[in-house]
């Protein structure tokens, strides 16, 4: 009896210890992240003004804004999504629908997982080798393609996962009324998985909007306004990188403000993505 009770106490003590540690872990994790966001808002908001969105990046020692950098980021993101998303969705469709049990799917899933975690700077080097070097100059288009390669695996993965969640009974019902396979995919499977696929795309946008490494030597940077996709173009992340490491106070302030803007945009995207999924789940 005494042995049983001491064993019981030991188990209870161990449980209390481990649960205490896990609460501590949660506290530590959230505290770190709160510290980072706090510093970001504190330092970034100080420089927030209309000028940030209406003026070009300044020369050292001058006041200015981030307009050309923001515009450049938007342009490259749009091109990257336009290129990467359709290919990604189609590839995911093959893996979940036509080739669910084929060898190609297994290999592609394996490779896609690797691309998903592949260092983005390596993708930058790849685009440098196949686009920048042959063309002889840096360009926004090269930057956008580098981003598109980052978009693709995210979309492939979410599309495949979401389509795999669609119950086969739905597909069978579609097939039973004589619909050909691609119509079943389009009107049944895509529709059932839509919110998941859209979430994947939004997450892909969120991922590339902060990517710096693949742009460093593809789109390079540009102090001025440029709408030519065949020439170097500024982007918010690269501008932040350059300004943060500079010795000038104005530039460092703009870097913080830019960082705040990116974070805000990324958080907004993620929240919208979540809201989309949540509303569909409620229905």
């Amino acid at each position, binding site marked *: 009896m005494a042995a049983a009770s001491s064993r019981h106490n030991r188990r209870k003590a161990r449980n209390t210890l481990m649960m205490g540690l896990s609460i501590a872990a949660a506290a530590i994790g959230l505290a770190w992240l709160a510290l980072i966001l706090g510093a970001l808002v504190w330092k970034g908001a100080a420089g927030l003004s209309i000028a940030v969105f209406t003026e070009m990046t300044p020369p050292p020692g001058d006041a200015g804004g981030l307009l050309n950098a923001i515009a450049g980021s938007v342009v490259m993101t749009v091109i990257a999504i336009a290129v990467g998303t359709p290919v990604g969705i189609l590839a995911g469709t093959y893996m979940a629908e036509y080739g669910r049990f084929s060898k190609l799917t297994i290999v592609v899933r394996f490779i896609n997982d690797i691309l998903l975690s592949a260092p*983005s700077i390596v993708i930058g*080097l790849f685009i440098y080798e196949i686009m920048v070097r042959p063309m002889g100059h840096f360009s926004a288009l090269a930057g956008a393609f580098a981003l598109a390669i980052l978009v693709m695996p995210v979309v492939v993965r979410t599309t495949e996962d979401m389509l795999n969640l669609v119950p086969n009974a739905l597909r069978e019902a579609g097939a039973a009324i004589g619909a050909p396979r691609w119509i079943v995919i389009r009107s049944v499977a895509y529709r059932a998985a839509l919110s998941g696929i859209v979430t994947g795309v939004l997450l892909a946008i969120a991922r590339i909007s902060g990517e710096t490494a693949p742009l460093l030597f593809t789109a390079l940077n540009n102090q001025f306004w440029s709408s030519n996709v065949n020439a170097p173009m500024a982007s918010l992340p690269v501008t932040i*990188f350059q300004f943060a490491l500079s010795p000038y106070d104005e530039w460092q302030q703009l870097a913080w403000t830019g960082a705040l803007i990116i974070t805000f945009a990324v958080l907004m995207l993620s929240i919208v993505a979540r809201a989309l999924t949540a509303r569909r789940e409620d229905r």
Partner: protein
Amino acid sequence: MTITAEAANSSSLAANIRAAAVRRFALTDSVFQTLTRLSAALVLVLLGGVAISLVAGAWPALSHFGWAFLVTESWNPVTEKFGALAPIYGTLVTSLIAIVIAVPIGIGIAVFLTELCPRSLRRPIGIAVELLAGIPSIIYGIWGLFVFAPFLQVHLQPFIIKLFHGVPGLSSLFSGPPYGIGLMTSGLILAIMVLPFITSITKDVFDTVPPVLKESAYGIGCTTWEVTRRVVIPYTRVGIMGGVMLGLGRALGETMAVTFVIGNAHRISASLFAPGTTISASIANEFTEADGELYTSSLVALGLILFVITFLILAASRFMLMRIERRAGS
């Protein structure tokens, strides 16, 4: 008579329309199928393209330095003598620090979220963690440089250096002037960065444990820890490994967060507080400024090494996962 003829007529018309529709459907279907298969194949082509282009770009450096490139510490653009040992060392050490710190904390948070947290707090905290996983790495970098590194330099590093002074082994690991930036700082930043990833995946896979499994364990009198240790973690091993794998992949190839705080020094120091460099930080810092084919090519060769390292690690973890899956299946 006419009525039956009309009926036969219209039925053969309907059959024709149906046949045409079937043909059209068959065609569009095969077009669509081919399109999806080509897209899937493009993923393979991309990876192959990355490998080939990196080897091609790195060839001048690799053929010039040979295998010595891998074990040479020197990195001198003036004499054009390049070696990859210091960046490789920095990459591995910073990632190791990050994983060692982030994995236990991440699993702890996941346990907290799934087992302990009041239901009303569960969703907000879960969402917060997922949102934070999406914060770009450059944010961590800028915070590390302006906030975290000065803090470490003034408060934590002098304390640790004094604490371990004279302890064999540890004293050289934590020695030298407190720069603030360096391998340890980079590792810590990486740990904070990969933490939301590991947490959100671990939490997701914890959620997939069938309630009936946990309830039956609770039913025979297990404590929460025992349920976690004996039921939840064994059931979700594969998923947790996936999360750790993802975290390691992120940490190894992470560029911006590290570039800000690593110090970009091409040397190997015994001290974790010394500045160093990683593969990705070297490329990010030097690529656009590199003049001369050999310099550029050496940086591409670094990229190739990073690519090979991440490929091997990811492939190894996948094979490991497959073995575990097979064992769980049998």
